């Protein structure tokens, strides 16, 4: 790609990611770039697409709106440091209560798991409001049923979980062993425990 082509491709990727309601997978970006080539059949290596994405990402660094990798794709979001000011003018959804966060953590680490398993770990029953809240926000989703008597539903985290917490994939969660030591600084600094 010439510099001019690269610049135009960057504009296109920027617009695509900006317009999409969900994070845009790298694959979709590469496809768009391929389609846009004068000879649509000509192979556009994935590295070139990745380079264009990286160019866009860098061009946003330090701005008020940045491009981040999340939930298997790319999205624009406001820079985290602006949150205190923005929240004064933007509507804020209610916070997740402690119980909901704990249930979410259990599901994230033990998925797929049943309600009974969740309750056993916390040592208390799972309140309906908590379950409703997690389902409503699609932070947890049903993942089939466990083949035991009663066939209870198995729960797992949904794509909304990754989006909500800005995670690219579940693998970005701290490892189990790390949890009882000093926690790594979010998002993914080196653990020092």
């Amino acid at each position, binding site marked *: 790609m010439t510099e001019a082509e690269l610049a135009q491709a960057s504009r296109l990727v920027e617009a695509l990611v*900006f*317009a*999409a*309601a969900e994070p845009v997978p790298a694959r979709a970006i590469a496809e768009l770039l391929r389609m846009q080539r004068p000879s649509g059949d000509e192979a556009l290596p994935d590295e070139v697409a990745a380079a264009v994405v990286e160019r866009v990402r860098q061009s946003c660094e330090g701005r008020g709106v940045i491009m981040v990798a999340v939930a298997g794709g790319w*999205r*624009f*979001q*406001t*820079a*985290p440091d602006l*949150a205190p000011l*923005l*929240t004064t003018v*933007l509507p*804020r*959804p209610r*916070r*997740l209560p*402690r*119980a909901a*966060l*704990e249930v*979410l*953590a*259990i599901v*994230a*680490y033990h998925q797929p798991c049943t309600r009974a398993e969740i309750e056993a*770990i*916390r*040592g*208390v029953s799972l309140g309906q409001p908590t379950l409703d809240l997690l389902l409503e926000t699609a932070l947890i989703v049903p993942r089939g049923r466990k083949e035991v008597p009663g066939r209870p539903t198995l729960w797992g985290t949904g794509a909304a979980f990754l*989006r*909500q*917490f*800005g*995670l690219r994939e579940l693998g970005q*969660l*701290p490892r*189990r062993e790390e*949890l*009882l030591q000093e*926690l*790594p600084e*979010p*998002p993914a600094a080196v653990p020092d425990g």
Partner: protein
Amino acid sequence: MNGGPGPTTGSEAPLLRLDGFEGPLDLLLELARAQKLDLARISILQLVEQYLGVVEAMRTVRLELAADWLVMAAWLAWLKSRLLLPDDAVAAEEGGDAADLLQARLEELARIRRAADWLRERPQLGRDVFARGAEQSLREIDRSGLALDVGQLLGAYLAVCRRGAGRRVYRPRPSGYWTMQEALERLRRLLGGQAADWCALERFLPELARTAASAPRQRRAALAGTLLAGLELARDGSLELRQDHAFGPVLLRPRTDAMQAPAPLSQVAE
């Protein structure tokens, strides 16, 4: 038994805070943390005694205590007996296993708490970072196409025909015979542009009645209709008819003003 140290040392009324715990396990974890930061090194026996102390103290103030607190207390009392005075090696092993189990449960709960904290600290979408507020749809709906295939078309046609077939039972079937009225119209039209030559009556039959394929009855009806129409037109003077001999061809031609009066009808008809 030890007096139960509150979950937070120095708190003036730790017992009243029992309701603040999410169940017995929560309290146990809190008690364990008060012992040591490293859960792997806490004393299970001490923990058991602390829990039983809290529950006992609680029962002196309040009569009722949720069942799960008592169930846990009973289990821990059993565990304590196994850990303190094992009857035999088997009981001692049981106690050890149960203590390990409790340890593992507390560690898992602690892990989950840390994971929940970690999640809470993440910049959250809609709380700390914001996605695009306004929707921008880059989808266009194209309604110009038609969901229509040959199968549908044929199905519709069959439906129409079946419906029609069913309905026609109650209807007189159109005869399809050539009426005199139609013959009159046809004769007038054809004779209009015709040279004043004699032509055989058959030539004025409708297309269909002239083909061999048509039914004989239809053909005879058409012939009769055309003859009658010819007679009618001869009577009002617009054409002439003639038959040279019996069963010979009936000829007709348009009458022009220059011509004489028509031959008497009676002669021709016979």
